[in-house]
């Protein structure tokens, strides 16, 4: 099974950020609906990470990950080319 092409941004769980902060930032910075933010926060908490976006452009993916890191979240870019 081929992985989807593009640049994926994930947010990773940590022991510092609160669930309230993670959900708020997914809603505010990533533009997720409240329910999507809550669902993504839950996946991050339970599985250690969750996908929050996929981009054709590496730079776009990095911009989002960097933006989230300025708020203290552990966001990473994963490339599938």
């Amino acid at each position: 099974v081929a992985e989807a092409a593009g640049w994926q941004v994930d947010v990773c769980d940590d022991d510092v950020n609160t669930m309230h902060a993670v959900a708020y930032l997914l809603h505010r910075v990533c533009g997720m609906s409240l329910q999507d933010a809550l669902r993504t926060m839950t996946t991050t908490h339970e599985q250690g990470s969750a996908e929050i976006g996929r981009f054709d452009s590496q730079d776009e993916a990095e911009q989002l990950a960097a933006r989230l890191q300025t708020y203290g979240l552990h966001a990473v870019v994963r490339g599938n080319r």
Partner: protein
Amino acid sequence: VNVLGGGTVSMSDATATVATTILEMLVGLLERGEIPPPLRRGPVRRSPTVDELLARMFPDADLRRTHGAAMRADVLAATRRLLAARQVGRHLNQQDVDDWIMVTGVAQFLFVPRKRGAWPTRQRALQHWLNVVQYRLVVAANPELAAEVSAWWDAQ
């Protein structure tokens, strides 16, 4: 810090002193490469380096290389805005809330790493204090979201 509905923030003198001290520590690290005083240790246990603190805050090495300067500049600008505008009982606009949430989110890593370990009590207390400030800001900024998260947590 007491954030009331509508986004007014009021701080006791003691709280304002703690907030100012932490914001100045963040400026010192990001602008001048200074290790915050609570992290300076004696000859037995070494202090974290500036690079180690920056790696806690911005944990992806590739992103630090390509976007590190911009990330540090964004956090520094937000911190400077808060230091310049700080006053008791001030109404917060959305920019203020964003700045506070950014700065409290990053400043936690002055005191503790991302993964729980043998966190020194005093540093853990400062990180927890920042957590509480940030939580109250989220509640004030988006009470509906905060209530949903709390309900989810209560159901676990």
